[in-house]
């Protein structure tokens, strides 16, 4: 419980913990968190699992399933807690879904998805996100090389 106190407790909202150190800003960018949203951010905190980690708390915002999909691509292994009235009402490890539709731009310039708007589908072929396969051009990419958002 000590660790939790390094970033202030929130009343209602979402806590994303165990973000790989340095990736919190990417998570903020992907979630399109605005200047006006109330967030607390802890970076390079000691982590029992990975040495160091980032933690992000967003007040008055419960992340939807689709939003969770997006962050797993940059923060595999993160944990997500939904907070209601200072209590953790839901907590789970974020996990890549078997496929991700609509969120990822294919880096292959000759891929049809870069010609026809709003089609995009990637299959997750390894849990660590190292193998993401485009449904259309069939190429494999590691998650960190994809344009996500």
């Amino acid at each position, binding site marked *: 419980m000590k660790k939790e106190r390094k970033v202030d407790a929130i009343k209602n909202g979402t806590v994303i913990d165990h973000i790989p150190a340095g990736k919190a800003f990417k998570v903020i960018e992907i979630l399109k968190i605005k200047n006006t949203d109330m967030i607390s951010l802890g970076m390079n905190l000691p982590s029992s699992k990975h040495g160091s980690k980032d933690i992000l708390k967003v007040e008055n915002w419960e992340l939807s399933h689709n939003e969770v999909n997006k962050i797993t691509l940059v923060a595999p292994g993160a944990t997500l807690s939904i907070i209601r009235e200072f209590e953790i009402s839901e907590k789970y490890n974020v996990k890549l879904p078997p496929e991700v539709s609509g969120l990822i731009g294919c880096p*292959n310039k*000759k*891929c*049809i*998805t870069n*010609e*026809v708007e709003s*089609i995009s589908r990637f299959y997750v072929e390894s849990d660590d996100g190292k*193998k993401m396969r*485009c*449904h*259309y*051009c*069939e*190429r*494999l*990419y590691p998650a960190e090389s994809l344009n996500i958002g």
Partner: protein
Amino acid sequence: MKNVISIRDLSREEILHLLDQGEKIEKGELKPDHSETVMSIVFFESSTRTRFSFETAMKRMNGKVITMSGTKGTSVDKGESLGDTLKTVANYSDIMVVRSGLEGTQRYASEIIPIPVINAGDGSNQHPTQCLLDLYSIRKTQGKLDNLSIAVVGDLRYGRAVHSLVYGLSHFSPKLHLISPDFLKIPEYIKTDLEDKNIEIHEGSDLSEVINKVDIMYVTRIQKERFSDLDAYERVKNCYVVSKSMFGDVKSNFKLLHPLPRVDEISTDVDDTKYAYYFQQAKNGVYIRQAIISELLGGSK
């Protein structure tokens, strides 16, 4: 089977089934008839060879063919979207053959039109009907497909025939020798896929090191149109030339395959040797395409 879009979609059984059907057609044991059927050929990239092969296959089965080859003077040229072109032509036909420079066009086509789609090449990705005719040719010349030693030579980076071939072969425990200049090595993601399937791969750049060891040598053209850097093309275009003088110690069952058209990579003195198989290989394409079309039209169960 609803479409033939990527050889990666086909199981070993499905591949063997299509080869068997092709063989029955070649032997005259099976005579599919599609006299009431219109096949559309929609080639956003122009081609003569593959187009003729599909047209011949359909016409041998009494079917009708409508063709768009290249986009010059077509609605595409006037700015029509790819999706609109596909949907319109689908209204006129019962089965569609598509070639495109954009990878995944046929997968997309299959999602927006109700008729079966055959991929006749998408960019550097796939050319599954070429793969099936290659496998047919390999089986026919070797009497089997399993456990063969196969060299694939030339442009392994951009060559879609090569990409389809190695995925197709991956069902048959081959030993693969991948011979190319460094710049044209097989893409990493395909190597990863082959390694995940425990396929034995040897990469190299010297064709003379492997020619006496292999059952099949599959030579491909270094394709000028795939290069954005023409200097790079000039540097590698003639790095492999197979000639008659290289056959002194090859295996007796050795056969030389090429998806055609060739430029200089196989010298013409090879054509009369017993090792040359590329012209028969092209002929096999008609039987195999008849089998594929029939399968998708539900005609050969």
